[in-house]
């Protein structure tokens, strides 16, 4: 990495963050809602990216964890009158614990069975949301979910709430950045690349598999606690299996195992259908075709294309340097 490349990256990062803060200022209510949704879904997808992209465990239950977080927030803030931060704590602990327990079957068998167990769990969670009326109000849903006060500022209006979501996304991103550079993050990658070798190098693969899955699930819960005050009304429908599949699609489309993959994937999944709305009834169809074409062109997702391009340029630059060095040797007396 050259110094200019590094500065270029930092400048690009600052520009994107500034744009995310300044540009939405004159967005309407709906635009801000969609952008907030993007931030929330990015958090959930980041959790799944940790589980799938870094630790290599396929989960089809991330949507269920978003649901658990959302219901925790909705129930605690409406019926309990508690602040959202308390709900956040409960959601994280709950999702972490359930994720940990759910990870156990994965230890016994090959990894694609975890996908099946989580698929079953996802549907079971949906049934509980729908049928346990005493807790979740069933199909009638929970309405009038309050938005929180953050350090004295009310976030009832769309713009402050968007900043609240963006701030949460920033915090989660920083935590994730730190996590994947920590020894834990390295152990997760070792687990993905070759579990047997990781084991022989002294990594407790059992514990790290469970850990990756539980942390990813907890982030789903975090996204859920933001989702409930965002929509201010929740019912079981958004948390069925298709949300889990959507989140998985976001991670793969963005580029699984890349830090910024979930950001792009959530952008495609949340914003692209909105941009295609002018085609009316066709927009989801076009979205599906776009996803398929992208995956045919680059199965490693959008960042996979970039990665390939950069790798090619690097090899070209290296071979050019080699050629220069060689010609110098030849012309030397």
């Amino acid at each position, binding site marked *: 990495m050259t110094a200019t490349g590094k500065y270029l990256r930092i400048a690009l990062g600052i520009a994107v963050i500034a744009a995310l803060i300044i540009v939405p200022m004159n967005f309407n209510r709906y635009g801000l809602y969609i952008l907030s949704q993007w931030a929330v879904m990015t958090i959930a997808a980041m959790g799944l990216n940790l589980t799938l992209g870094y630790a290599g465990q*396929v989960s089809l239950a991330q949507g269920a964890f978003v649901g658990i977080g959302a219901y925790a927030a909705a129930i605690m803030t409406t019926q309990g009158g508690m602040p959202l931060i308390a709900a956040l704590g409960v959601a994280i602990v709950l999702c972490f614990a359930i994720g940990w327990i759910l990870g156990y*079957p994965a230890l*016994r*068998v*090959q990894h*694609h*069975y975890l996908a*099946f*167990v989580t*698929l*079953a*769990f996802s*549907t*079971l969670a949906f*049934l509980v949301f*729908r*049928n346990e009326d005493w807790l979740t109000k069933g199909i009638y849903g929970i309405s009038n979910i309050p938005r929180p006060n953050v350090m004295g500022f009310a976030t009832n209006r769309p713009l402050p709430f968007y900043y609240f979501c963006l701030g949460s996304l920033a915090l989660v991103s920083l935590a994730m950045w730190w996590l994947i550079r920590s020894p834990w993050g390295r152990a997760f990658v070792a687990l993905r690349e*070759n579990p*047997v070798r990781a084991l022989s190098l002294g990594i407790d693969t059992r514990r790290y598999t469970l850990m990756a899955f539980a942390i990813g699930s907890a982030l789903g819960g975090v996204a859920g606690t933001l989702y409930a005050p965002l929509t201010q009304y929740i019912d079981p429908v958004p948390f069925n*299996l*298709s949300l889990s*599949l959507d989140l*998985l*699609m976001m991670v*793969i*489309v963005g580029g*699984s195992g890349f830090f910024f993959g979930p950001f792009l994937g959530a952008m495609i999944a949340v914003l692209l259908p909105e941009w295609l709305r002018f085609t009316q*009834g*066709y927009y*989801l*169809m076009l*979205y*599906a*075709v776009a*996803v*398929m074409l992208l*995956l*045919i062109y680059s*199965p*490693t997702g959008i960042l996979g294309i970039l990665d390939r391009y950069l790798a090619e340029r690097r090899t070209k630059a290296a071979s050019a340097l080699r050629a220069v060095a060689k010609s110098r040797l030849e012309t030397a007396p």
Partner: protein
Amino acid sequence: MSNLLDLLVAGLATGAIYALVAVGFTLLWQTSQTINFAQGEFVMLPAFLMLAVMHAGAPFWLAIILGILLSLLLLGLGFKLLLVDPMLRHGVLPLAIATMALAIGMKEAVKQFFSAEASPFPSIVPAGDVSILGTVVSLQSLGVLALAIAVVIGLTMLLNRTSIGHQMQATAQNPTVARIIGVPVERMILMTFLINAFLVALASLLITPIYLAKFSSGEVLGQAAFIAAIVGGFNQVRGAIAGGLLIGVVDNLAAAYVSTQYRAAVPLILLIVIILFRPQGLLGRPEERTV
């Protein structure tokens, strides 16, 4: 208890349809490592193809034939050439995600070009009841069961008794060795895609009169077939058949004796228990962990 027999027959009938879908699912997995998340939508579509042909004025029998042919073309050949072939070498997961996108696309296409409402679909088995051992059993269930069993027997004969079947099994078990001993592996893989398309078209023909033709009907069906395949054994055709029948019966009995609210939970709990205690499925072979 008098309706236990009826429940059992109805369960076996839906189970036999699940088995058809699950068999196609496992065949694709075995020969080409394709986890087809659009399998449920594959069952949904042929009914609409047949309805479209009938709307054009064709009689029912012609609609069935054309519907099956179109399914072979679109869901067999088209699916393999356009989606599976370009993606296969990149591993299991991107292809699985692409089939999820395909499922969304198929649902939306049917909703947009046909109808968002449920449409009635004619039954190839006449309605009515017959009396067996003193209890009344619906003729439709019996007809569906008989037809599905006939297809399953036919398929098993094809796989176990004919040369093509043996070549397909060889392809599924070890493509490299199969290629060395002269099996046209590519053609065999194409064959499994065509068989899958045929099976889903047939399942569509059998199940749509019971549940109506609706763009979203594939979701439940796909999941049932998926569970059936895992419960029975992901790498065995007869496992998928047993799994399908079991899930059909369990589902029907759960609806009657457990609770209608949690009927969908019973097969899922069965799935989790099976994965915990017998991960290779009831009739499956254990897969070795590769280093």
